[in-house]
């Protein structure tokens, strides 16, 4: 219990830090974002829009502590302001309409990559020097060396443009109404395959190597020798004895990746024009939509922290040593 409370305290501090960062960045950076935006929209902004933006970005003349208190109050009450590029939609609404796609894409890719990667790692460590162990790691390291967006664009070009197997952009075809019809779900699935596969391709190597290296250490434990001496089936030793005890670091990385799913799919979403929060973040940056930008960053951070907290709770369940402390 103390462990959980400590962790909770830590995540609250981390969240506070990111809010403060968000607050300070526009205030201490050279140049005035409001006039930049005003110049860009060529004076087409409403006076009240301008006023709201001033307030959000701290270009008003109140003392900074008052602004800070105001800002914290707004965040805590879920008031993240109004999007500029989609005026007058509130930022929270814009985010809510997009986070589902990100979770779908990132979640699918993460689960596949973690399952496949860990299985490969287990097999590679179990048969040291076997086919999987000697051929796959260098290959995966090599693939992992390519810039992710480059691979994704290459895949889009090959499978989308040349072969025409995959749709080129967006999460579903244009004329389609989102809903729980078979037509829509299969269409969304078809749009999901290629982006998800590219993520799996580059991230599976990390999972595999991590699992392999931990499991090599586990394999030399005495209880493995003992299990062998008892004459247990190799499959049982491999999964129930060795892999089970080598899983813990993987669980930690799963937690971290789970959080990073929300922000991590940014490049994927940009390349495939997938309508998630990452794609929206880049659009917000390019359109100088500061309220949306800040809202997105906070949402992404909150998701990362939440995922990690959940894994911590899971950890207490999995690792008795944490409980005894």
């Amino acid at each position, binding site marked *: 219990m103390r462990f959980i409370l400590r962790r909770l305290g830590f995540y609250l501090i981390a969240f506070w830090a990111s809010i403060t960062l968000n607050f300070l960045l526009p205030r201490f950076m050279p140049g005035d*974002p409001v006039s930049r935006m005003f110049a860009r929209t060529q004076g087409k902004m409403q006076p009240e829009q301008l006023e709201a933006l001033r307030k959000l970005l701290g270009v008003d003349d109140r003392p900074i502590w008052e602004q800070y208190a105001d800002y914290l109050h707004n965040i805590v009450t879920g008031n993240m302001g109004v999007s500029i590029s989609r005026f007058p939609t509130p930022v929270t609404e814009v985010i809510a309409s997009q986070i589902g796609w990100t979770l779908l894409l990132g979640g699918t890719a993460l689960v596949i990559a973690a399952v496949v990667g860990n299985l490969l790692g287990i097999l590679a460590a179990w048969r040291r020097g076997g086919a999987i162990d000697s051929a796959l790691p260098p290959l995966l390291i090599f693939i992992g060396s390519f810039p*992710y967006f480059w691979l994704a664009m290459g895949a889009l070009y090959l499978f989308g443009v040349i072969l025409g197997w995959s749709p080129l952009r967006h999460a579903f075809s244009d004329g389609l109404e989102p809903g729980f019809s078979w037509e829509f779900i299969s269409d969304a699935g078809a749009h999901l395959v290629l982006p998800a596969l590219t993520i799996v391709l580059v991230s599976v190597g990390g999972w595999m190597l991590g699992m392999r290296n931990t499991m090599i250490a586990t394999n030399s434990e005495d209880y493995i020798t003992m299990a062998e001496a008892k004459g247990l089936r190799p499959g049982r030793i491999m999964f129930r004895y060795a892999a089970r005890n080598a899983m813990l670091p993987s669980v930690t990385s799963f937690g971290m990746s789970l959080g990073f799913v929300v922000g991590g799919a940014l490049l994927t979403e940009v390349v495939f024009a997938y309508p998630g929060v990452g794609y929206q973040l880049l659009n917000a940056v390019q359109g100088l939509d500061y309220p949306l930008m800040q809202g997105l960053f906070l949402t992404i951070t909150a998701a990362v*922290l939440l995922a990690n907290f959940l894994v911590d709770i899971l950890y207490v369940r999995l690792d008795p040593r944490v409980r005894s402390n």
Partner: protein
Amino acid sequence: MTTFIEPSPSAPETGGESPTAAPASASESRLAGKSPHKPKQGLVHGLLTNTKAMVGASILLVFIALALLAPVLFPGDPSRITDMASLEPSAEHWLGTTAKGQDVMALTVHGSRSSLLVGLTVGFASTFVGILVGLASAYFGKFIDEALSLVTNVFLLLPGLPLLVILAAFLPPGLGTVIVVLTITGWAGSARVLRSQALSIRSKDFVAAAVVSGERAGRIMFREILPNMASIVMGTLLGCVIYGIGAQAGLEFLGLGDVSTVSWGNNLFWAGNEGALLTGSWWVFVPSGLCIALVAFSLALINYAVDEVTNPRLRKIKPAKPAAVVVGSTTGRSAAK
């Protein structure tokens, strides 16, 4: 993005506990025996005879040479328009021309300068910060350790790519900004790895002896502890350089770098912007990406080799049962603390 660009967090860490434990005790026993020989040469010699390390180093050297010789090989501004637009590779333009009519070969060779410079600078800067934080954490302990670990963990948790994007959006564009932003987002991982390693060395007897004999804190940290974790520092450095090169390319690809410089990331940004792939000009798009991949691959090979040379458990020969095995999952637990 972390999943894509940053080196996998578990790989360097899992090996973390064992290397120093083993060499330290091994060298002690050797000194007691008849051959008082050089434990320091182990790493260098091991790397020189390691195929992976040699292949990696050769690829890297070729690129460094290209970067240094770029003004000689392709004099003049590489982004000037030299010929017709979108020409296929030919004898005159080995890699064809872009949609603007620039020579792709010149762009690629010149691009290596900025990419390697930023990658190496970011790598060294974040490793340096990581060493400072990690050593201070481990040496002073108590309150300082708590505070530094808190900051490190907060930075580790803040989502890297979105933070990069936000920072790059607010800071004035330029090469310096890219370096600063990448260092801010990149140091925390190395600090954590180096701290856990330094902690295990901090508890060794020779450090206690140094403390008792009244050596200054700085000397103990940099002359006693640091040399004993050279291999981890090297692994971290390589990982940070890979991260720097990849993240710079990603940032520039998103159009958030300094668009006026010639670098691999910017080449790809322009290729995407000019629709190189949609018009089928693959030659504009392939070379820069391949170069990033080759450099990152060569660094990863060297990293892999360092791991192999210093971590007896990962060597090819099936090891005899080690006398004392540090349970691998302890690293995972310390990470969760």
